[in-house]
């Protein structure tokens, strides 16, 4: 019985949140990796693009809520999501037209692009704060739990409860659908293949008559969809605050680099590696150990390796270790 309780406790506090957070990071890292692979720079504005997409979605959610439209048990934000994606597409295509295209024509070095994206980041950062403010926004509605801890306890008679939030279930289901759609697109469609070809060998792609401006446009559109979905899922699951999205940049980049930059499969794996490392290292294991250890050996402390305030240190350490020992990432990516 104690063993079962321990398993449930781990599931409740580590496994379920880890899977949800990992899916969110994976979606974010997919965007970073696509930009790196195709446009060839590290996009520092990624976190703030996520914030922008989430913001547009939130504004539409509020609009729908005021009109009395809802999705029943599912959050209304799901209905607003397509509008958020369209808004973000418009923003990214406009940014590309106004900013990045100029540097592409100059054939600027990747490091210039990185600095440029840093500037774009500050602008987007300001834009989001200007429109929706720097504070916390809640926009989740509908059913809160797929299964609450109390129901689970009543159902199983165990002392530990397993809660699965609607947003967590939604995150995983959406992430799976998005990843399948993305892989189908880049592996099976003509446009997707031309994007991979362009990423692989720019000059030869030109010789084959692939139009780089089209490839760039499709990339931004896909990135807009990925960032908005990731941003909204994260916002639903935790809460929306512009600054947290800026902070997400580190774990997202860590995920993309750990998996191997430019490799979509790696981005997904990297997302889960970072998420689970963060969650397991900042979780207080006392409860689980009390169940598992003999009575006299129970720990008295929290058995928490790192306080949650330091969770970003985890991504940072993993990032450094990977860059030192395996710069191309776990999967075959480009070296940084």
């Amino acid at each position, binding site marked *: 019985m104690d063993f079962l309780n321990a398993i449930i406790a781990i599931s409740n506090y580590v496994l379920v949140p880890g899977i949800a957070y990992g899916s969110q990071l994976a979606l974010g890292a997919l965007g970073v990796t696509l930009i790196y692979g195709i446009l060839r720079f590290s996009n520092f504005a990624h976190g703030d693009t996520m914030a922008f997409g989430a913001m547009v979605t939130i504004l539409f959610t509020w609009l729908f809520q005021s009109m009395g439209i809802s999705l029943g048990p599912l959050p209304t934000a799901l209905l607003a999501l397509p509008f958020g994606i369209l808004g973000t597409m418009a923003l990214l295509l406009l940014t590309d037209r106004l900013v990045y295209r100029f540097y592409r024509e100059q054939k600027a070095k990747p490091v210039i692009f990185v600095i440029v994206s840093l500037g774009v980041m500050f602008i987007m950062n300001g834009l989001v704060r200007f429109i929706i403010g720097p504070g916390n926004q809640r926009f989740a509605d509908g059913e809160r739990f797929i299964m609450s801890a109390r129901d689970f306890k009543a159902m199983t008679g165990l002392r530990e409860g397993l809660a699965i939030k609607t947003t967590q279930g939604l995150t995983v289901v959406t992430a799976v659908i998005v990843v399948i759609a993305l892989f189908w697109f880049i592996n099976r469609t*003509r446009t997707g*293949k*031309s994007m*991979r*070809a362009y*990423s*692989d*060998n720019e*000059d*030869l*792609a*030109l*010789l*084959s*008559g*692939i139009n780089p401006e089209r490839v760039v446009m499709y990339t931004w559109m896909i990135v807009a969809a990925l960032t908005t979905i990731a941003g909204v899922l994260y916002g639903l699951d935790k809460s929306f605050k512009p600054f947290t999205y800026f902070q997400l940049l580190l774990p997202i980049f860590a995920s993309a680099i750990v998996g191997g930059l430019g490799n979509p499969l790696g981005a997904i794996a990297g997302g889960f590696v970072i998420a689970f490392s963060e969650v397991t290292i900042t979780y207080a294991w006392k409860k689980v150990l009390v169940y598992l250890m003999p009575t006299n050996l129970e720990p008295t402390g929290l058995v928490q390796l790192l306080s949650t305030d330091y969770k970003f240190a985890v991504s940072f350490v993993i990032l450094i270790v990977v860059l030192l020992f395996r710069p191309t990432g776990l999967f075959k990516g480009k070296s940084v």
Partner: protein
Amino acid sequence: MSEPFLIGDAMTAGYGKGPDILHDCTIAVNKGEIAVIVGPNGAGKSTAMKATFGMLDMRGGAVRLDGKDITKLSPQDRVIAGMGFVPQNANVFTSLTVQENLEMGAFIRTDDFSDTMTQIYDLFPILKEKRNQEAGELSGGQRQQVAVGRALMTQPKVLLLDEPTAGVSPIVMDELFDRIIEVARTGIPILMVEQNARQALEIADQGYVLVQGRNAFTGTGKDLLNDPEVRKSFLGG
């Protein structure tokens, strides 16, 4: 004599704002023939070919394809105009499968290109066998076949090959030459740059020996092979 199918006529050209590399250099290929550019290292062989493909700044001379002046066209537009180009390095998409490489070669085509793909698989049977393998996993000789196959997918009217046998073993080299002759037999004129001067001249209808960006000797492959001057300087006696 009538005008050759593709001619880079009296080209003077260089990269960007750099000095001239080609000086009044002429290379050409006739319909249904193989023309070969040979010469010592740094003679401007590849440069001459790239100039006909529009990858350099032309400061003098002209490039004509089938009688039309294409000097001002970009390389991409020349592909559409009917030129196929196989660069020396990085000439396949390494992370794409062989079949995807061929599909990308046909990117500008909007018609059904499955016939062309069948033809290419007939021409290079090994590619059919490995069509679902990533091009980066293939051997050097097989990669070159993918590269040529990719360029053929547009059904070009003329094919430019930049050192197709660079870095492959002598046996593979012989096989590649055989394949190139087969491609030429399908009626596509081929202009190629070669390090292996003797072997290349043996299959060439027309040969160009370049030295320091200038035409040093020009003639049929056979003539050049028999020319004592050419033999002494470039073919090792």
